[in-house]
C-alpha cells in the first residue's frame, strides 16, 4: 500500500518537474530569443534579415554571402554610426545619463536623508506629493515646458533636458533612497549628535560612509530612466541634439523610405548593448532595487 503511494508520488513529481522545466525554458526562450535573433540578424543584409524566400536565410546569411563574400557584414553598423552619425546620439546619451545620474543622486540623497529623519506632518505631505508626481506620466508635463522653453530659447539643448529629467526622476529617487535611509538606524546619527556633531557633520561622517550600496542601486535606476526615456527627450531635444532612443525613432521614418532598414537594426542593437553589459555587472543590484520597495511594503 505504502509502496504504491510513493510510486504514485514519484510519477507525479516527474510530471511536475517536466511542466516546471518546460515553463521556465519557454519563458527564458521568449525573453532572450528576440535579442539573440536581432543581434545575429544585424550582421546580415536586408534580404536575409527580412526574408521573403526562406527564413533560414536569416541564419545562414545566404544573400549576405553573395553580396559581401562572407555571411557577416558590418555594413549596417557602418551606415548607422558613420553615415547617419549615430555616434553623435551616443555621445548625447552618455552626457545626458552621466549628468542626470550625478545630479539626481546628489540632490536626492540630501532630500531623502532629511525625509527619513523627520516625521512632522509636512514630511508626510512631501512624500505624498512625490508619490503622486512619480505616478504621473512625464508626457503630461511637456505641454507645460514648451511655452517657456521656446520663449527663453531653452528648447532643444541638452542642459534643459538634463534638468527636466533630473526633476522628473526626483520623486522616484526620493522614495527609493528614503526607504534605504530608513533601514540605516537612526541611533547612528543620534549618537553622533550626542557626541557634539551637528546634523550636517552627522550626515557627512556617519551616514555617507554606509550609504553607498543604496546609492549605487538608486543610481542604476536613475540611469535606466534617463537612458530609456523617449517621450520627454523626443519632445525637448532638437534634431542635432537627439539622444539614441529618439534618434532610433527618427531612423525608422527615414530609413524605411530609403531602404536602409539595416541601419536602424544596427542602431537598435548598438543601443541595447550597454544595457546588456549593465545587467551583466549589476544583476544582483537591480534585483535588490526591484524588491526593495516591495519588501518594505
Amino acid at each position, binding site marked *: 500500500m505504502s509502496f504504491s503511494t510513493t510510486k504514485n508520488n514519484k510519477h507525479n513529481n516527474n510530471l511536475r518537474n517536466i511542466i516546471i522545466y518546460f515553463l521556465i525554458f519557454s519563458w527564458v526562450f521568449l525573453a532572450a530569443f528576440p535579442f539573440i535573433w536581432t543581434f545575429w540578424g544585424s550582421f546580415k543584409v536586408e534580404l536575409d534579415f*527580412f526574408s521573403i524566400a526562406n527564413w533560414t536565410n*536569416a541564419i545562414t546569411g545566404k544573400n549576405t554571402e553573395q553580396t559581401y563574400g562572407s555571411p557577416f557584414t558590418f555594413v549596417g553598423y557602418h551606415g548607422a554610426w558613420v553615415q547617419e552619425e549615430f555616434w553623435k546620439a551616443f555621445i548625447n546619451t552618455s552626457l545626458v545619463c552621466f549628468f542626470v545620474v550625478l545630479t539626481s543622486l546628489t540632490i536626492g540623497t540630501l532630500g531623502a536623508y532629511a525625509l527619513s529623519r523627520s516625521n512632522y506632518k509636512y514630511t508626510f505631505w512631501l512624500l505624498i506629493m512625490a508619490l503622486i508626481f512619480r505616478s504621473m506620466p512625464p508626457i503630461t508635463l511637456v505641454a507645460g515646458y514648451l511655452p517657456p522653453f521656446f520663449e527663453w530659447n531653452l528648447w532643444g539643448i541638452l542642459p534643459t533636458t538634463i534638468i527636466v529629467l533630473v526633476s522628473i526622476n526626483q520623486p522616484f529617487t526620493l522614495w527609493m533612497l528614503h526607504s534605504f535611509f530608513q533601514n540605516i538606524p537612526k541611533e547612528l546619527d543620534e549618537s553622533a549628535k550626542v557626541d557634539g556633531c551637528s546634523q550636517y557633520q552627522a550626515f557627512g561622517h556617519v551616514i555617507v560612509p554606509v550609504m553607498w550600496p543604496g546609492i549605487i542601486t538608486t543610481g542604476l535606476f536613475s540611469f535606466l530612466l534617463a537612458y530609456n526615456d523617449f517621450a520627454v527627450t523626443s519632445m525637448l531635444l532638437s534634431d542635432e541634439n537627439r539622444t539614441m532612443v529618439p534618434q532610433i525613432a527618427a531612423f525608422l521614418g527615414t530609413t524605411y523610405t530609403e531602404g536602409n532598414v539595416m541601419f536602424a537594426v544596427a542602431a537598435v542593437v548598438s543601443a541595447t548593448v550597454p544595457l546588456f553589459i549593465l545587467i551583466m555587472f549589476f544583476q544582483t543590484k537591480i534585483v535588490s532595487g526591484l524588491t526593495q520597495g516591495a519588501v518594505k511594503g
Partner: protein
Amino acid sequence: MKHKTFFWFILPTFLAMFFFITLPIISVVIQSLHTPHENILITVENCDPFGCKKVTSIDHEATRDLKNEKPLGRFVGLDIYLDRGHLAFEQVKDHWNKSRDLVSFFSLISDLPFYKAIFFTLTFTFTVTPIMLVLGLLIALGVNSINKQLKGLIIFFSLLPMIVTPLIGSIILFWMIDSRGIVGNFLQLMFEDPNFSLKASTFLTWITLIVYGVWHAIPFSFIVFYAGLQTLPKDQIESAQIDGANTFQQTIHIIIPHIMPLITFVTLMQLMDNFRVFEPIIGFNAEAHATSLSWIIFNDLGGETRQLSAAATSSILTIFGIIILLIPVLIKTWKEFDFKK
C-alpha cells in the same frame, strides 16, 4: 530633525520639483482653459469708380498685438474639455439618444478619439496586469523549485524584456512579427495563409500590444515574487506536506497568503505603469488601430502644429485617471506613516 536643517537638506530637490513639476502642472491647467486667439478680421470699404466693395482681411498688426498682450490665448473655460477631441459631451448625448442598446452605444462612442484611447488604455491595463501577475507567479514558483546553478542565468535573461528600452523592445518584436520576419513567417505557415498579418486588423493589433505588455512586465512580478518566496515559512510548508497537502494546495493555502502584500504591491505599480502605455504604440506603428491617452498627448504636441491646449487638456484628464488609480496607494501610505504624536 530641526525645521531649519530639514529645510536646507530638502531645498535643492524641492526647487527642482517645484520648478519642473509643480509649475508645469499649473501651466498645463491654465493652458487647458485657453485656446489660441482667432485672427482679428477687419472690414474695409474699398471704393473705386465702379462702386464700393467691402473687403474682409486679417489685421496682422492687431492680431500680433493681441497675442503679445495675452500670450495664453483667450479664456474658454471648460470648452476644450467638452469638445469633440476630448470628453465630447454633445456627441455622447447624441449617441446615447440614437442607440438602442449599450453595445451600439459603445461602438458609436469608440469612434470618438478620446474614448477610443480610453478604451484601449483600460483594456491594456486590465488585461496585462492580471496575466503578468499569474505568469510571473508561475515562473517564480518554477524557478524557486529548481537547482541553484541555473538561477543566475535565468534571472539574467529574464531581466532583458523589462530593462531594455520599451521603444527598442517593441521595435525588435515588430520586426519579428513583420510578414517577412520569423514570427510572421511562422504564423503564415501555421494559418496556411500567405497574406496573414498581425498588423492588418484592430483585434490582432490589440493582441500584439497586450502580448508585448505582458512580455515587458513579467520580469517585474517574477523578480518580486521570487524574492518573496525566499522568505517562506518552512515549518508551515513541512507540516502541510506531512498532512498530505499537494503542491497546488500548498500554493493556494500557504504561499499565496504569504506573498499577498507583494501581489498587492505589484498590482498597484502595474496598474499605474500600464495606464501610461505609449512606446509600444510607436514601436509597433499601431496608431491606426490602437491609441492611448499618452499617445494622444504626444500626437498633439508633435508635428508642425503644436496643439498645446488640446495636449494640456488630455494631460489633465490623464492625471485625473492616474489619481483615481492611486487612491489605494495613498490611503496605504497614510496608514503606515509614523506621524510625530
